[in-house]
């Protein structure tokens, strides 16, 4: 039983309980569709539902056959490889460009800040189907459609806004006099940037990179437009898998993706905390 302040009426108490259970309910609906995928991916039968055997925890009802199917299917393996390659390069491009843009946009001498910022953030705001269609027509002109370079550029453009936002946020708390201090001690602007500015905005850069990677990793619309058969990514493969052969292979891939995402998040959170500590923001007592 929860302890309430003495002045609470019955309505206060009901309100508190209502809020509490609504919150749990929302969380439940957010998490369950993700969590439920994991046991289902070990289904011995080609169904998306729990079989009687699974519910009674009969070992025979579980198997790793869908995982075998993924590993032995060259299409899936290619898709996984493509996703990582495109995600990796798109993240690097987006992080470098986004960080530079954020630094430039935070300068007091930068004219037309708002307009430029709005333009650079637009890929995030404009519906992705429009971005994808635009890129398709534009990239075709340069022979970039159906190529890895084209996909990397496209995904980098989608990732840049996230990097700009996270880096701008860390820069807004950045003390300009630190930069001036570096210069006054004889370090060139570039050296000051790498020695002083970069270590301090690193948490923002890492978060931005993370968002950029995830954006590329689960992007499907642009891939549908731009990718040739050789550049199928995981989401694209799942998309066609859903239409063509409905079996729990998709669930196995999804489980792998969940594991990758969680590992990824933990690693980056670890990196972020570490650089946050280096920033000297944590109290050492």
């Amino acid at each position: 039983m929860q302890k309430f302040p003495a002045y609470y009426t019955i309505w206060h108490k009901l309100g508190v309980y209502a809020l509490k259970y609504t919150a749990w309910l929302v969380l439940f609906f957010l998490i369950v569709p993700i969590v439920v995928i994991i046991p289902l991916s070990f289904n011995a039968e080609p169904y998306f539902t729990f079989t009687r055997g699974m519910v009674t925890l009969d070992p025979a009802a579980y198997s790793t056959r869908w995982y075998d199917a993924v590993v032995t299917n060259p299409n899936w393996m290619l898709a996984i490889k493509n996703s990582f390659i495109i995600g990796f390069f798109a993240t690097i491009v987006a992080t470098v460009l986004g960080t530079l843009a954020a630094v430039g946009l935070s300068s007091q001498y930068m004219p037309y800040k708002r307009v430029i910022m709005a333009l650079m953030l637009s890929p995030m705001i404009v519906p992705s189907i429009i971005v994808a269609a635009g890129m398709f027509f534009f990239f075709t002109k340069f022979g970039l459609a159906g190529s890895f370079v084209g996909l990397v550029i496209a995904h980098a453009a989608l990732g840049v806004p996230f990097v700009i936002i996270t880096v701008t946020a860390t820069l807004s708390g950045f003390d300009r006099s630190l930069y001036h201090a570096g210069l006054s001690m004889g370090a060139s602007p570039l050296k000051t940037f790498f020695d002083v500015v970069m270590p301090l905005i690193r948490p923002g850069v890492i978060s931005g990179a993370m968002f950029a990677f995830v954006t590329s990793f689960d992007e499907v619309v642009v891939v549908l437009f731009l990718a040739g058969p050789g550049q199928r990514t995981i989401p694209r493969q799942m998309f066609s898998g859903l239409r063509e052969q409905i079996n729990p292979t998709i669930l196995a891939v999804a489980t792998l993706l969940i594991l990758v995402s969680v590992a990824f998040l933990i690693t980056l959170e670890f990196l972020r905390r570490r650089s946050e500590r280096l920033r000297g923001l944590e109290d050492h007592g």
Partner: protein
Amino acid sequence: MSTDGALDFLRFANIQKSYDQKTMVVKDFSLDVAKGEFLTLLGPSGSGKTTVLMMMAGFESVTHGEILLDGHPITRTAPYKRNIGMVFQNYALFPHMSIAENLAYPLKVRKLAKADIAQKVEKFLQLIELEDFAGRMPAQLSGGQRQRVALARALIFSPSLVLMDEPLGALDKKLREQMQLEIMRLHKKLGFTVIYVTHDQTEALTMSDRIAVFNDGVVQQCAAPEVLYEQPANAFVADFIGENNFVPGKIVGLDEGMVRIEIAGGEEIIAMHSDCDVIGTKCRVSIRPEKMFILPSEHTFANKITVKFLARLYVGDYIRYFFELPDKTEVVVKVLNDHEAPKFGEGDEAHLISRRKDCFAFAVT
């Protein structure tokens, strides 16, 4: 003064600065600073002190004019090539580097040998008495300790010129006084030239060889603290530095290089003057509260004024007396608290006297 070199080691030649191409923040700043001098820029908030310092450091462009350091124009030199040390109000220590790393940074940039760096860092840590803090991060130091590190970091690469923008502004009163002594000690010991910015006049008066009083984008007066206090060049300086009474009057005569001024009630004051000497013009006479004396009885001294007693304020080490002239101008007199401090009833007549060279007539603008 510890000046031992050129008198124009640092020269500002008609510096002007405008941020928006319309209003001049700095209108005509000209000043020579001697080598080894401790010069303070003193002025009210918004007078452009930081702007001048930023132009010197190279973080702001100079709209017009030239800054010369050791005879070389530096106006078009990149900030990191100027070799000028800087102490910031908020310390600006690199939070991700330890104290020792902070101190080593300017030396590393200059590519000194590791052993030399370690030795120099050690020496400066001793100098600021923080030897045991080498491995700490800035966040683990107190405000005063941080500012000492910032000071050492600005000095460790032996710049000939060090700029300080209100370096003690964030500290409490006691710590400020400690740090003032610390800065003066280091200045004496290492002999660098300092341009110090503050709006605390006590700080300026106690620390500086010379003070440049800055207002409205112009240097109002640049002189040693005593001169500034005892012979203000204009009404702004007289009013800004310390406390002053301003008695309105009219010039009625010239007298051995001084002016004779008739004030309300018909009495006359003979005063020094700089910007007014035309008979018949209106002026204000400034007299400091501690440079006026209460006469025990009526005499016919020169520079005597007759006033009416208003009130007395007991401060402790001294007593403030408030009087008024026939035209209701208030006159404050500071009297040392000894047994002779006179007593008055409200409305009593009193007689005040002051030396001629302590009275300054300024034009009314």
